[in-house]
């Protein structure tokens, strides 16, 4: 007997996706979306603008080989281009594709580079929409950083929506984020900010079309100031197809040179990796039961204070470190003994600069583990305004 197969329409699929992902946090949306057969081949589109780094960081955590499409309108701030390279290298993104309009198209439609003043929609079409649509040909879905709070026209976007410009699905993992969520995320993960943010540009597009925003103004007020335009072509317009010029992907930064632990010699763990001990001066050693209030030591003078962790379950050293920092100690602080990789973020947040372990432990828990554990979760304490 013949079987009736109903293929759900795109709106139905999108509704089902939104329902299924309803309770997901942003990073979970990303992680699942990248392997959801419903969404097919997925690319991310990023402007490397003011807030982009949050989503880029997440994608790097989930899968740094995800294709990231960056549209260079050739009207961008030089700071944006430099920032794009810095972020891609820092996050280890391996497949950033730079998308541009062809020289022929530009020569034909905007030879003097002033189309943005006479007809900004046509300019966006030429420099963004058309090249991007072309670049998206090989993909079924694309990830954007759009958030509800950004504009009244975005107030009801959801995690998944139809792309009006083509057959694809748009994925908006940050749909429900607030400005504060983004700011928290960037601070807590210690991510580099776009250099123009500190100069009053909370939303950054092309140089001719972006101006700084005054305190209290809507963050997107600086985009297309004085014009009846709030969205650029990428998120709106249905463009005609043209050739594209795919650029070379940025080469990923070389891995830090491997460090081999040597028996009998201490291994120093820092944010930058494992290293041999480079310190040759005098070390002030404190036991885990040191009573700072009674100890007769002038710790302020010490160049390096080393606090013992006789066992990783003995957390007294964390309090000693915090108290030394609160008392104004500015020198080097080292945790010494049985400290495990998962305690690295605790040690760093308690004021330690580094950890000293033996070669055995270093072999069993290689740098990779320390690094992963130091990509720390956001910190409630920082958010609550507790100064280190």
């Amino acid at each position, binding site marked *: 007997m013949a079987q009736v197969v109903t293929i759900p329409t795109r709106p139905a699929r999108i509704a089902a996706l939104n329902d299924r992902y309803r*309770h*997901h*946090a*942003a*990073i*979970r949306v990303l992680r699942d979306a990248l392997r959801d057969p419903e969404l097919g081949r997925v690319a991310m589109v990023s402007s490397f603008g003011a807030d982009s780094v949050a989503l880029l960081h997440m994608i790097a955590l989930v899968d740094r080989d995800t294709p990231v499409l960056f549209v260079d309108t050739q009207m961008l701030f030089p700071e944006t281009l430099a920032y794009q390279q810095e972020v891609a290298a820092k996050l280890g993104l391996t497949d950033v594709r730079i998308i541009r309009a062809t020289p022929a198209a530009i020569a034909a439609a905007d030879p003097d580079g002033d189309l943005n003043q006479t007809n900004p929609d046509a300019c966006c079409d030429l420099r963004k929409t058309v090249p991007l649509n072309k670049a998206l040909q090989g993909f079924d879905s694309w990830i954007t950083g759009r958030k509800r709070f950004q504009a009244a026209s975005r107030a009801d976007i959801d995690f998944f929506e139809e792309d009006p410009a083509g057959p694809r699905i748009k994925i908006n993992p940050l749909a*429900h*984020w*607030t400005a504060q*969520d983004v700011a*928290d*995320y960037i601070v807590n993960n210690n991510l580099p900010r776009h250099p123009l943010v500190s100069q009053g540009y909370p939303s950054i597009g092309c140089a001719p079309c972006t101006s700084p925003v005054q305190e209290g103004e809507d963050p997107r007020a600086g985009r297309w100031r004085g014009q009846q335009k709030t969205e650029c072509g990428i998120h709106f317009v249905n463009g005609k197809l043209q050739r594209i010029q795919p650029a070379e992907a940025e080469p990923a930064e070389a891995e830090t040179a491997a460090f081999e632990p040597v028996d009998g010699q201490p291994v120093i763990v820092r944010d930058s990796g494992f290293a041999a001990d480079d310190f040759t001066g005098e070390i002030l050693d404190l036991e885990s039961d040191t*009573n700072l*209030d009674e100890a007769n030591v002038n710790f302020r003078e010490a160049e390096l204070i080393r606090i013992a962790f006789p066992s*990783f*379950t*003995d*957390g*007294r050293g*964390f*309090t000693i470190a*915090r*108290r030394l920092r*609160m*008392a104004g100690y500015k020198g080097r602080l080292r945790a010494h003994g049985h400290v*495990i990789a*998962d*305690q690295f*973020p*605790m*040690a*760093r*947040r*308690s004021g330690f600069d580094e950890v000293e372990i033996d070669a055995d432990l270093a072999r*069993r*828990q290689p740098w990779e*583990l320390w690094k*992963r*554990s130091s990509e720390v*979760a*956001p*910190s*409630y*304490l920082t*958010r*609550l*305004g*507790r*100064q*280190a």
Partner: protein
Amino acid sequence: MYHHTEFDRAFVVDRAQRFRDQVQRRISGALTEDEFRPLRLMNGVYLQLHAYMLRIAIPYGTISPDQMRQLAVIADRWDKGYGHFTTRQNIQFNWPKLVDIPDMLDALAEVGMHAIQTSGNTIRNVTADHFAGAAADEIADPRPYAELIRQWSTDHPEFQFLPRKFKIAVSGSPNDRAVVKSHDIGLRMVEKDGESGFEVSVGGGLGRTPLVGKVINEFVPVADLLPYLEAILSAYNSVGRRDNKYKARLKIAVQELGIDHIRELVDERFAEIRPKFDGTDQTILDQIAARFGQPTLVSGRSTADYDAAREADPIFRSWADTNLHAHKHADYAIVTVSLKKHGATPGDATFDQMRVLADLAERFGQGDLRISHEQNVVLPHIHKADLAALHAALREADLGTANLGLISDIIACPGLDYCALATARSIPIAQQIATRFDELKLEHEIGELKIKISGCINACGHHHVGHIGILGLDRAGVENYQVTLGGDGTETMSVGERAGPGFSKDEIIPAIERLVYGYLDVREDASETFLQAYRRLGPEPFKAALYPEKAAA
């Protein structure tokens, strides 16, 4: 209901991911079992008698219908179809496989739940009054403060490896339903010169050495709360004993060093720490308070149906008499759903029951659900006109037991059926007592009587504060039960006294029966509870009932 921020969501997702990684590393051998142990404990994973156990936090006992449904999914998919609500506002699953736990944590993270710091030597799940925001006698809703404390203590870098576990409870009402004085830190909301703050007590605890907390500071203003707590923890991390795990709790430090010495130490630390808080926590506190949606309470709807149902249906009336509490709005009631059906395991709920509770909370109760430390479920805002329909639906799901505060509303720890430390079984004793008094049809006649049972000296069943406490021990391979009398776990907290020699598992039920008949004989009238009679008469008449041979001799 507290609505989670994106920050909260990202945090739990990250932690679930991290734990998945740690499980991998344990399996690959990068982590030794010794090193894995505290990590799994930080994520609520215990190794029990038969299997791993996963303990999930229900912070300050507040849970949404969606979260409850997700617990049902977990019980159904990864456990044996039920979960066990504990005396600390947690839920435990007793049968997960280690390899499944990362998936369970992911499923929890989807609804903003987690198992972070439900075990290990760190600051545990913060508990609060389960009637918060609804009770008639409340000064302020304690949950925003409990949530602030939860955020501050979560992943606090300095306090993940304390000498021992650390428990904090908050009460917003003079009737202390959160038993704050049995916690390492107990916070009781008070007002002074028009300003809100907390009376702080420290060093309470049950366990092997039951001690009532001592007041360390009569008034800490709200703005100083976090730095003051941090000062206590900092002092404890420095002076708490690490040589003997049974002497490592804060209560022992308070007992050995004296409350004055501890206060001095805390004051010094407070002076160091206070300037490090820049006040952002107070802004966040306001945001948290705003994220607790207020119930919409309607006035003017008739409650005549309720009165009529009381008249018409004696089963409904008896349930309403025991399982309702006064709501701050006269047309509403606080409903406690008993998870203590006669003969069942106290605190257990099946996945079907969890779904029913979630649905009923949405249908009648504004989507608000609570878990009480007495292992029951609370629907805090039910209009009186809806009570009869609610009760009918509960009965259909086998949740209509009318025994709140009565002899069969027993708190019992998991005991030898699950717990690796146990010396005796506790759940079967609870079941037999409940069944016996149900047969005797005496339960409502006896009135308020709290029996609490622990399966070993660690006292997770809080037997010290039961009006009748039962402690199961192992005497040369045979289970033996000691009885304590006169304990009280409320604001008039007292520790029960041992009555005499223990009873075998066959003798204990008849002994409790004699004891209760003895009380019925000596009470002044039906309004005098067991505890009141005990306090009036002292232990002698009760001992005589327990040990008739001796009395006769």
